């Protein structure tokens, strides 16, 4: 069985974001494997261990630098990588087409993992688009996964810790949520080994994808300006509590 993980190279959540040319970010910051994808990689490796001969492939659509993210996935246990390179940032519609075509050219997916969302674009949709293109069932925010004979049984978390249980035929798309597992962080030997694992590079142009007319285009990016001016509430607990109630009633108008 070939297990594919779609990984994304994203800015570190702690990095300072600077906007260039109105709608791009300054990429001269630290990038890493999207945090939800860590759960996807960990789960894919766990499943692989139950299937002798199975192979885990990390596939990424990004700039040349995204190879680092594929190396991180390989240090966490993926066997090899595929990087579809493009100098441009594409929307989810094109990304799904690229990943689908890349997977198809590389092998035969028995299972496809992604993170439930990326922490940069926060689009929450690429996995569903890949599913629609392949005509595979999709589940998102998966916090429990069991692979049975020819099906996957998943728990998908909704709000408040409530989960639904779904059964999907294989192959299917699993959008990993944080509750799925505890990521297996690589040891030093893992990192060394990952450097020897192969990464195949394909240029986006060579996939001959006809870019559709429909899409999402970022016109402008602006830093979120926080204009909060902190005011102190002083006094003993009762006085403070009374003032909070007044604020909730008169200013926020929520009670």
């Amino acid at each position: 069985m070939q297990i594919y993980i779609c990984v994304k190279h994203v800015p570190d959540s702690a990095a300072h974001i600077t906007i260039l040319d109105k709608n791009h970010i300054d990429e001269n910051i630290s990038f890493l494997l999207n945090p939800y994808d860590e759960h996807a990689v960990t789960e894919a490796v766990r499943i692989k261990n139950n299937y002798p001969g199975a192979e885990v492939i990390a596939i990424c659509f990004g700039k040349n630098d995204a190879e680092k993210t594929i190396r991180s996935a390989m240090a966490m246990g993926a066997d090899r990588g595929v990087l579809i390179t493009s100098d441009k940032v594409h929307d989810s519609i094109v990304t799904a087409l690229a990943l689908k075509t890349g997977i198809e050219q590389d092998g035969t997916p028995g299972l496809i993992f992604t993170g439930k969302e990326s922490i940069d674009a926060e689009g929450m949709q690429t996995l569903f688009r890949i599913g629609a293109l392949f005509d595979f069932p999709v589940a998102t925010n998966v916090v429990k996964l069991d692979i049975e004979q020819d099906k996957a049984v998943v728990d998908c978390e909704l709000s408040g810790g409530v989960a639904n249980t779904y059964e999907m035929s294989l192959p299917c798309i699993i959008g990993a949520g944080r509750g799925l597992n505890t990521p297996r962080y690589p040891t030093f030997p893992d990192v060394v080994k990952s450097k020897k694992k192969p990464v195949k590079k394909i240029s986006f142009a060579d996939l001959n994808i006809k870019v559709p007319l429909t899409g999402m285009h970022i016109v402008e990016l602006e830093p979120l300006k926080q204009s909060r001016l902190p005011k102190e509430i002083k006094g003993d607990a009762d006085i403070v509590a009374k003032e909070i109630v007044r604020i909730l009633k008169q200013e926020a108008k929520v009670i």
Partner: protein
Amino acid sequence: MMKNIGIIIEMDDGKVKETNFGMITMARAKNVRVFAFIMNADAAGIKEDLESFGVTDIIEVCLAPDLQNNPVIRAKAIINAIKEYHISMVFGLSTAMGKDLLPRIAALLDSPLVMDCFYVDFDQKIVRTSQYSGKTIATIKVTGEVSVFGIRPNAIEPVKVQGTARILRFDSSLLVAKGFRVLKTGGTDKDTSASLAEAEVIIAGGRGMKNSENFNLLSQCAQKINAAVGASRVAVDSGWVPYSMQVGQTGEKVSPKVYIACGISGSIQHFAGMKTSGMVIAINTDENAAIISNCDYYVVADALEIIPALTKILGTD
């Protein structure tokens, strides 16, 4: 030209959830017909609620009873209704349900989708949302015959309007979901806590809560004002509360009208989940905590003393 906007209404226990009304208000504009799609619910019972915010057409989407919880079936039914009623824009809430349903619809239609929008310009087809963990605001232009938008709960204030709506029945009982079966639904939120994504007020606890029991103090206070209880990653990782309560980068992203942070220092990752809140009130013993310099009101005190006092006053109202 007349535009038809379709709104997917979220129900709870036979009632229209409050958060829908802001979304309906957002969809109202000149030359717009506002269609409300309700699935397996009694339209007559909620007609008054919906029309008082400007819905012109209520579409009762009827699904096969044994398949009504299947998100694939729901997505396909909405797609059929979109086609039937010539809908050019679809709105749904960016809630747990919306995050599962809206991308399914957009993917099957091959339509553009932007989640968590807090502004929509119908004519230009331009929306605004947060990106990069809430650090930037993105203005996005969509192209396509049908566009799908996830709307941030509480993004705009609901405003009532005079009007009447007609009810139409749309039968979608013959759909199939290939390779996708619902084995068990976790049930509706029957516990007393409001959902984090939709709550108007969130009371969240962090390291300063010290243990699991102290979170009961937050719950007691929250119950008085129908608030939801959230937590920082520290509280979750310490095992005091379940992960589902986590607000932040890798937890729930919330935009309540008021966020009360109790004993939360305010890491970048925590801010990523709550910086779009309307008002932030911080209670922390450390006056140098990051959250104190990025809030609207702060109290330098122990939340374990302030919160019970707050609960007491709210109880006497």
